[in-house]
């Protein structure tokens, strides 16, 4: 298939539809508007459901209902809207339902602004909603990857019966890059996907079947039973941590004197700076977590070469991933942080300057 020049917001929507998503519930917010608009245009054409909910709270609960019915379902929003969805996300995780949530991050806190930011790392990775649970969090850094992650996210959600968040930002949502889509799932494949969860989901009894009574629920008032349930979820999470960690290494070698850690949009800019430094004969490596949970702790340790004297974390926030990098590095080398906030995206020149000071 030929490449198409597309915005990240549109590409992830198209890819979701191709992955068999036929239900989408959301509420408008900048800078994810192209996503909801694309779904409004395309879902009717594929016989799917597009519904603009009365609020983000309602939208995520519609997702809960549709996911409880065992179907591939997605919602999307931007930072303030994702905060509103946290209630439902916790319920979805607690009830072990598969669902995909896209966050096109903007500056915060509060209403903040509508420019790109990475300030929802804590919310996505360290909790967000109430209770003990994890989201699987995928962080793209290109339009192509944003699109590819839609199908990955649905597969992971179905495999582990857990909500998956694609943590993008205003830059990736708004920018256009060439994107090549995977072939769309056939109706037959979609039907199969739609029936994969009938052992537990809300679904009709076939005539003559034994009647089932499936409960979609996150409530358990008996503490010992709830304890078992949470422990069971964490056994599942251990499997996810073992099997699903993903990251990219860029220019990592034994010559590295500095190792950068950056994710999402920020990593693109760091790459530019690394390329410039290369011309000056300065060796800087980059490790880019693709899954923010589970986090690539081991990969970071492995990437610290013999000459590395500084690990440098760059984010579009005040250092939310920094703690995870420190946990990985365990004091082997000093860890530094620099970032920009308020929706200001740092430039390659700024990163270059920061890195040059390490030499």
């Amino acid at each position, binding site marked *: 298939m030929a*490449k198409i*020049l597309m915005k990240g917001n549109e590409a992830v929507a198209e890819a979701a539809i191709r992955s068999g998503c036929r239900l989408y519930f959301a509420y408008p917010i*900048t*800078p994810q508007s192209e996503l909801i608009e694309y779904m409004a245009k395309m879902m009717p054409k594929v016989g799917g459901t597009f519904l603009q909910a009365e609020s983000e709270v309602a939208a995520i609960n519609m997702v809960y209902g549709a996911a409880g019915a065992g179907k591939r379902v997605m919602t999307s929003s931007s930072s303030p809207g994702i905060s509103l969805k946290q209630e439902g996300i916790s319920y979805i995780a607690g009830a072990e339902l598969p669902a995909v949530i896209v966050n096109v991050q903007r500056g915060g806190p509060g209403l903040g*602004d*509508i*420019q790109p930011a990475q300030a929802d790392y804590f919310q996505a990775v360290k909790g967000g909603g109430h209770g003990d649970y994890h989201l699987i969090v995928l962080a793209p850094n290109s339009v192509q990857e944003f699109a590819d992650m839609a199908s990955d996210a649905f597969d992971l959600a179905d495999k582990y019966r857990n909500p998956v968040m694609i943590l993008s930002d*205003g*830059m990736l949502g*708004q*920018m*256009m*890059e*060439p994107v090549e889509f995977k072939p769309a799932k056939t109706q037959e494949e979609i039907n199969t996907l739609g029936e994969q969860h009938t052992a537990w989901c809300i679904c009709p009894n076939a005539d003559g079947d034994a009647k089932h009574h499936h409960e979609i629920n996150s409530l358990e008032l008996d503490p010992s039973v709830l304890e078992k349930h949470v422990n069971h979820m964490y056994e599942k999470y251990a499997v996810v941590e073992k099997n699903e960690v993903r990251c990219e290494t860029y220019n990592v070698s034994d010559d590295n004197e500095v190792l950068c850690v950056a994710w999402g949009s920020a990593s*693109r*800019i760091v*790459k*530019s700076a*690394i*390329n410039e430094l290369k011309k000056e004969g300065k060796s800087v490596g980059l490790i880019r977590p693709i899954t923010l949970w589970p986090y690539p702790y081991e990969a970071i340790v492995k990437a610290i070469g013999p000459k590395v004297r500084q690990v440098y974390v760059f984010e579009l926030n005040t250092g939310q991933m920094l703690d995870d990098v420190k946990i990985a590095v365990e004091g082997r080398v000093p860890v530094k942080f620099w970032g920009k906030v308020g929706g200001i*995206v740092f*430039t*390659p*020149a700024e990163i270059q300057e920061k890195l040059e000071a390490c030499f």
Partner: protein
Amino acid sequence: MTTEMICAGFGGQGVLTIGKFIAQSGMKEGKNVSWLPSYGPEMRGGTANVSTVVSDEPIASPIVSFPDILVALNQPSIDKFAPSVRKGGVVIMNTNMCPHGCPREDVDLVAAPMSDIALEIGSMMVLNMLAIGIVIGKTGLIKYETMEEDLNSFLKAKNPDLLEKNLAAIKRGIEIGQKHE
């Protein structure tokens, strides 16, 4: 090789489209491309700008700090972006809307009364096509043929008159660009 470009003007001049067509043609010519717009309130009546990168290598940052090419359709765009253009870079300036001119001596300046020329061709709507033409004529960043094919594919049936005007504007732009070589 990597070419980084910023197009800027006020909302409604079609600057985002300039970047989009160039990125699209670059993609069709087998290059890596990225297109990153300013968005939000800026788009609604204020200044709008878009960073476009066309490269033989994978594109790292889509944010352009030091453009190789600046297309500035009004004075605020010159004021904001001209200082960061790379030494020896190209500045394409619409003199009709840039009364104070460009402060840089160390760049390759293509200055033309682009608004007047657009009206002459038939509509202010073709201002952005004129700019694309100048970029092609001056830098050869993309090929005219790719643009023509692109425009044909969606305008030929829908609005043949506009197609003709667009193509005329691109050709005129190419002439202007080449003259400055």
